[in-house]
């Protein structure tokens, strides 16, 4: 049966969607409703310009500059915009800071709300039912699946993004990074650490 893609549900489903989206794009293009070049520009923006490097710069600045951290805590939208990160799904930002007492975790149980301007497009798991269902009821179990075990006494705060506020977690700065440059610090800040499903990398693991 080699070569018969219909034996493989996954392949079949993906080829169905390929055809379905192509048909829709064709109709819309023929009707003059879309410019395929605009689609290319959208995709290029999110493949090359907007991603978690943006958020990592915000976090590294907050770790390095107490005045910026204070601004970020009071007016995250403006503080983040000062580094050049604005726009779609980042219009109304809030930064939440991990502390020795509290770990923050962000979810959107109702859809896939995510701070695109600082983290880019969300990963598949963030939009899928397993994470959306469990983050609010079993966050410690969720964190274990990401390899994170928090101390038993640490409080966990889950932020369900039910309105138009978008949350950026500021992870705790790892020990042993005194005197590091912002650029080097940013290298420790992972996407997951800014969602709350991870922690910042330790200095000995930095690339």
């Amino acid at each position, binding site marked *: 049966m080699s070569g018969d893609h219909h034996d493989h549900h996954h392949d079949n489903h993906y080829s169905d*969607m*390929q055809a379905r*989206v*192509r*048909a*829709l*794009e*064709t*109709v*819309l293009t*023929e*009707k003059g*409703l*879309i*410019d395929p*070049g*605009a*689609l*290319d*520009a*959208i*995709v290029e*923006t999110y*493949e090359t310009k907007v991603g978690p490097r943006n958020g990592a710069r915000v976090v590294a600045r907050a770790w390095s500059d107490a005045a910026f951290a204070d601004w970020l805590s009071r007016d995250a939208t403006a503080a983040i915009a000062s580094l050049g990160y*604005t*726009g*779609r799904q980042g*219009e*109304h930002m*809030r930064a939440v800071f991990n502390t020795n007492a509290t770990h923050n975790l962000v*979810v959107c*149980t*109702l*859809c896939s709300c995510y701070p695109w*301007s600082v983290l880019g497009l969300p990963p*598949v*798991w963030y939009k*899928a*039912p*397993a994470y959306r*269902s469990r983050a*609010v*009821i*079993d966050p410690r179990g969720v964190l274990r*699946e*990401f390899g994170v075990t928090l101390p*038993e*006494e640490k*409080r*966990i*705060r*889950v*932020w*369900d*993004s*039910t*309105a*138009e*506020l978008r949350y950026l977690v500021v992870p705790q700065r790892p020990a042993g990074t005194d005197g590091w440059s912002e650029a080097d610090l940013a290298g420790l800040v992972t996407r*997951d650490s800014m969602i709350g499903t991870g922690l910042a990398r330790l200095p000995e693991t930095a690339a």
Partner: protein
Amino acid sequence: MNGPHDLGGQMGFGPIAPEADEPWFHADWERRALGVTLACGAFGAWTIDESRHARENIPPAAYLAASYYEIWIRALEVLLQRHGFVTADEIAAGKSLSAGAAPKRVLTAEMVAGVLARGGPCDRPLSQVPRFAVGARVRTRNVNPTTHTRLPRYARGKTGIVEAVQGSFVFADDNAHGRGENPQWVYTVVFDGPEIWGEGSDPTLSVSIDAWESYLEPV
């Protein structure tokens, strides 16, 4: 509506299975799905709230089996037909068969950077003062509307504390149905885990939602 999208606290979906070094897209059609969804959103014919409601209205079995870009495309097909831009026959045929509605604008490549950088702010000025202050005890209403709402089921009829007054925003529940923006104050309301999940809840857990004022009543 109590649709398949309202997932908080449901069980049985298995492991989260994060993918190491996940690519931005897993197939080329996902790139086009992102692009076509944003480009059609730029028509200005529907709001983000109407889009979300169209996604929630996908039948539960299909919703839960679909990837998120498939959810977007299924909803987009509904929106395009509802607003007269394309017909079901055209979608089935994959070609234009008749003239349809004309959008307020068509997104060109040159417009993309500016449109994405502006986004769609949905804060709106409001003359009334907020009904609740930081620290107030509030209870979420126990409601089961058949229409769009952003009050998840797990957080209905629960008592929590107003932690922040976040500003005044377009009211999604009205805006999704073309009833106007009708802005309201939005509050971050935080609940103790046991208030929501009862016996056996993680005692170190607290959960917050962002709630429009009409979701809340004083305690």
